[in-house]
């Protein structure tokens, strides 16, 4: 089997076996965390596109997540749209927003870009908090609907209840699609251009590549994914206030990408699960949580700058070479 086909096969195998997760995991709380982690996979894949592929660290992912969450919620609550329709619409709406944000901010590089996007996140957060006639402010919006159920070949598929298995499958499907989409982008001509920009943007420009177009494209895709993640989050949790969409969450998305391995496809998946489960386990050390979390981030950046996935892969290859040489 050729290399990409093998990878694709492994991917399918993982997703297929993940479909049986609800039968294996009997603790609803774990199921709940897994659903959240899968939503985070979508978010961090988006973050990885701009941070790992293009090398521009954007700190506004949670802001876009918030835009997606609030748009989807408000469309269903105030205008009576079907949840399925709004789930399909939010990536487009968030993408549109990100053009407005991305066009001016992509004119600057490096730290400037990081700081400007961070400022955008704060603006979005402030507006969500202050424009309370629409967003409900700090008190938030409750009773957000789940997607409506339907019947398939006689089976009734509904999405109600905490840690619902069908909602899990929906999120799993979308997370797998997102990862697939990122894989397609990475292995296409566009992906090569993005890597070229990361390595040397001036040179890429000199080769006749209109790099700002590619950067904007990636930024918009990244934001659309964040918007989708936000909508999925809102309709899953059923309650919305601005708190999860602050700068902290954007930093978490960056941490997910760094921990897993930036610029890889599997890295953000591993990272997303890490940032969802790690704080839950650190809850034991409640008041030390923030310190521990920051400490892990610092230590990971110093000793594991490439992330868990590349390091594990190298370790695996090293052991393999040792075993093969002994024969």
């Amino acid at each position, binding site marked *: 089997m050729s290399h990409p086909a093998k990878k694709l096969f492994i991917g399918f195998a993982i997703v297929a076996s993940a479909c049986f997760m609800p039968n294996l995991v009997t603790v609803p709380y774990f199921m709940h965390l897994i659903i959240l982690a899968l939503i985070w996979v979508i978010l961090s894949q988006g973050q990885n596109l701009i941070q790992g592929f293009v090398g521009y660290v954007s700190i506004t992912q949670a802001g876009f997540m918030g835009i997606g969450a609030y748009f989807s919620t408000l469309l269903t609550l105030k205008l009576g749209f079907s949840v399925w329709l709004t789930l399909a619409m939010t990536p487009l709406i968030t993408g549109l927003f990100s053009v407005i944000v991305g066009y001016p901010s992509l004119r600057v590089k490096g730290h400037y870009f*990081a700081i*400007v996007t961070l400022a955008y996140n*704060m603006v979005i957060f402030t507006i969500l908090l202050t424009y309370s006639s629409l967003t409900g402010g700090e008190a938030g919006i409750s009773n957000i609907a789940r997607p409506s159920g339907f019947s398939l070949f006689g089976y009734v598929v509904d999405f109600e209840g905490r840690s619902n298995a069908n909602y899990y499958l929906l999120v799993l499907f979308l997370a797998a699609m997102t990862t697939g989409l990122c894989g397609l982008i990475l292995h296409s001509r566009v992906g090569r251009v993005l890597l070229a920009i990361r390595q040397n943007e001036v040179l890429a420009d000199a080769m006749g590549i209109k790099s700002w177009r590619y950067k904007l494209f990636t930024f918009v895709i990244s934001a659309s994914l964040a918007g989708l993640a936000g909508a999925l989050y809102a309709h899953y949790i059923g309650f919305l206030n601005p708190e999860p969409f602050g700068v902290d969450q954007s930093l978490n998305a960056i941490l997910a990408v760094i921990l897993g391995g930036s610029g890889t496809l599997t890295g953000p998946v591993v990272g997303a699960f890490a940032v969802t489960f790690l704080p839950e386990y650190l809850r034991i050390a409640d008041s030390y949580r923030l310190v521990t*979390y920051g400490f892990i981030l610092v230590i990971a*950046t110093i000793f594991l700058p490439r992330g868990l996935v590349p390091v594990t892969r190298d370790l695996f290859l090293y052991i393999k070479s040792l075993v093969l040489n002994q024969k």
Partner: protein
Amino acid sequence: MIEIFQQALNGLAIGAVYVLIALGLTVVFGILGIAHFAHGSVAMFGGYLTFFVMEKFGVPFFLAMGLAMLGGAALGFVIERLAYRPVQDAPHINAFIIALGLTMMIEGINLLVFGADQVVIQTPYRGVFYVAGIAVAELRLIVILTACVLVGVITMLIAKTKTGKSIRAVAQNRQAAVLMGVNVSMVSLVVFAISSALGVAAGALIGALLAIAPGVGEGLAVKGFAVLILGGLGSIPGAIVGGLILGVSEAMAAGFISSSYKDVIAFLVMIVVLLFRPEGLLGKR
């Protein structure tokens, strides 16, 4: 009309604090190329420390602030040695991520050591007098004066002393400075100490002027960077001008538009500057 002057004066006081924050950030950025995001949290640490020293030992405000500045300088040493030194040859973005981790750590330490309550530092400067119809609070004048003195001291330090000369040399050309025998490792330590001490002073002044609370630090760091972008990264005059502009425009926005949107307006000013003059008002192209 009087209202405008009144708001401008209020803005100058808070702007003076922004200048101190931005000054600390700009020396670190100009010399080490690190976007030291944890600076705001260091400032909050300093504010809490000042409050704590005043409460515990009953010393006057400025003595407590001075002691806290020494503590801040020590913290700066530790941060530089343990956190930033290991990644100095890695891509700059790694240092930025370290800075984010440090922010969490210092915020966490602040919570653990000083608690989650909002703290206001009580100073004896409570007088108010009127000049041509404008109410001038004594405290605001003191804050502006303190900032002026600190900025003056730092400028003299960098312009006149031998240490200052080596700091400027490293900022201009790191390699050449190494070849001329400048101890670059020492310079970056000194720079971090100065920067953190300035941040601590800013935190103490914020504590006297407004209040210190968990979460204020991040906002402060973002404001500091907004000032840097306004004035030009790495430029000291830029930090001064940018800080005052940000402070005054914020006060105007709070006074005439809406106080809940004042932060938004500050960021809009920054975005507009980036669009039309990405190198900052006083930065070099």
